[in-house]
């Protein structure tokens, strides 16, 4: 049922299609009552229509505010995540630098000396051609 049908429904109930005898006998008073009823139903319809428009507008405003609030909150969340990402990137960069520092040949040499390691005096080199020929 549409809104207009809902508004018309009471009138339909109050205005039967087949008038009874009493109604025919008292024709004029019944006409005034009908006029009053028509006026009253117009007022109700207008009231309901206005109320409906106001409620719809209110709901629209609420919807807009809810959307705006959600977007704003999402913006703050995005900003927080960006800051978190930047901090993680910074921490990662610091770790990469620390890794490079630990890999530095100078540090490795110093550490090797501290552990009492010595440089190999000779390194035996095997010519690959000779090995390949032997196979």
């Amino acid at each position, binding site marked *: 049922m549409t809104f207009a049908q809902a508004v018309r429904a009471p009138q339909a109930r109050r205005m039967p299609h087949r008038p009874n005898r009493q109604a025919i006998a008292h024709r004029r008073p019944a006409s005034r009552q009908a006029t009053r009823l028509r006026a009253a139903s117009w007022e109700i319809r207008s009231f309901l229509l206005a109320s409906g428009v106001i409620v719809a507008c209110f709901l629209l405003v609420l919807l807009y505010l809810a959307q705006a609030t959600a977007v704003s909150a999402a*913006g703050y969340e995005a*900003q927080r995540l960006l800051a978190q990402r930047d901090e993680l990137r910074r921490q990662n960069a610091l770790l990469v*630098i620390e890794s*490079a*520092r630990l890999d*530095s040949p*100078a540090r490795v040499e110093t550490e090797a000396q501290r552990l009492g390691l010595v440089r190999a005096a000779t390194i035996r080199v095997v010519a690959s051609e000779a090995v390949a020929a032997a196979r």
Partner: protein
Amino acid sequence: MTATISHTRLRVLFAFFTVASLLLSARLAYWQTVGRGDLLSRATDQVHSDLAVAAQRGIIRDRTGAILATTVELRSLYAIPAQMKDSEGHDTRFAVAAALAPILGERPEVLRAAFDSGAEWLFVRRRLPEETAARIAALGLSGVGFEMEPKRLYPNGAVGAQVLGFVSDDGLGQYGVEGSYDDALAGTPGRLAVSRDPANRELALGLRAAVPAKNGDDLWLTVDLAVQNAAERELAAVVEREKAAGGAIVVLDPKDGAVLAMASSPTYDPARVGSANTEALRNRAISWTYEPGSTLKAVTIAAALDKGVVTPSTSYQDVGYAVIGGRTLCNAQCKVYGPTTVTQVLTRSQNAGAVFVASKLGAADLNAYLHAFGFGARTGVDLAAETAGIVRPLAEWYPVDLGTISFGQGLSVTPLQLASAYAAIANGGILYRPYVVASRRDADGEHRTAPVAVRRVISEETAATMVTMLTTTVDNGIANAAALKGYSVAGKTGTAQIPSDDGRYVDDAYISSFAGFVPAIDPRMVIVVVLEKPQSKLLGTVPAMNTFKAIATDALRYARIQPDRP
């Protein structure tokens, strides 16, 4: 009567409201039209911020990809003395200074004086190490805070300092690669215009206009960190042992002029540039000149061979000295050798022999070959602050200059120039422009540096002959201390006097050097070692050769270069 009064009152009231409405309307109209711009800008200023977005400075890596320099954001500690109060409003400056002092390694009085200086806002310490910043943050002190600032970090410490250069506090590259490639490394800053709330948070619904920053290019160097480390380690050791005033080492790839290592002493730590002296900042491999001495005999003889005026077996009668331009030029210790071939001139490093060869060549040709080998002009290496050295114009040569220059006195060169010249001999006669940056990587991809062959200096035959003569010099001659087990080595020693400010030479002080390449056949690296005023004096070439050997041994082993001798 009452009705009349009431009517008047109504009129007055009406007039009042009318005037008030007109005034308000006029004021409103003013702010909507004439004053709109001012109002709008004041409102905009309250919520909008327009900031420069710093570009990330590019990373510098060695040829294997190891990080040599990179930038990271570190926390700088600032203070707002007026906000140093506890919950009851008492001043806590003394307590804050006392808490910070032991962490920062500073005296509390110094910090307190800074807080009491009257400054509303001041940096207490900039770019703190992460651990230090974390310790301070954990204290939860009032009136202090952190601000992020970029910091250039060099994870290998002082290794490669002179090649890399450094970045000043205001973000400008100085010296070395940082200086010469500052534009490429720095990138282009962007802009970010956003609306912010009172808590300084960006508003998602507000204005947002961003021009992204273009980060700096990453640079991949030709330098090999392992070879660079070996060069710097050996240079520091020999300078200390010999109590030398300084020194320099250059390691080049003779096939294309790529710089594998470049060391200079004294050196500095890029993390503490402020405490380094000016001399330490100078890269002696390119910014310092010296008279090369006998290492230049190889160039003189190569020129004469190339010109065809002598052969390796051309001989002369050595009497221990040569007279030229009315001056007598002696061999070392005026030693007399008798009949001598050109090869022996090199293997024994005879000054008189070099004069003999130069006399055959002539001043004009010697001058031309010196320039062809790249002396007297910048090599064009892509590093800041290179110097050209001095080869005087031929018109300014005295007759004796032909003799002195033939054995490396009377001109000045940089260690890099000498290394380039030896690289030309090693690679078959082509002079390459030395270079340090192998490739540049940006958003578009990798841009590789193409090696630049400057010119052919000597013929392939001459170069091959020179390689043989220089190999003999190491195997059986004056440079025998540079011989390496398992590898053929070609090279020449040099001992040169040091010119003084009065135009004469400094007494009893020398510059000792060795220039060589290994393996002599199919050379992989040219190494030049120069020591300034070693305590071994005339025997200073021995520590130079030992340094050459140590670096070559490490580098050959590291590069897995197969021995070419049993």
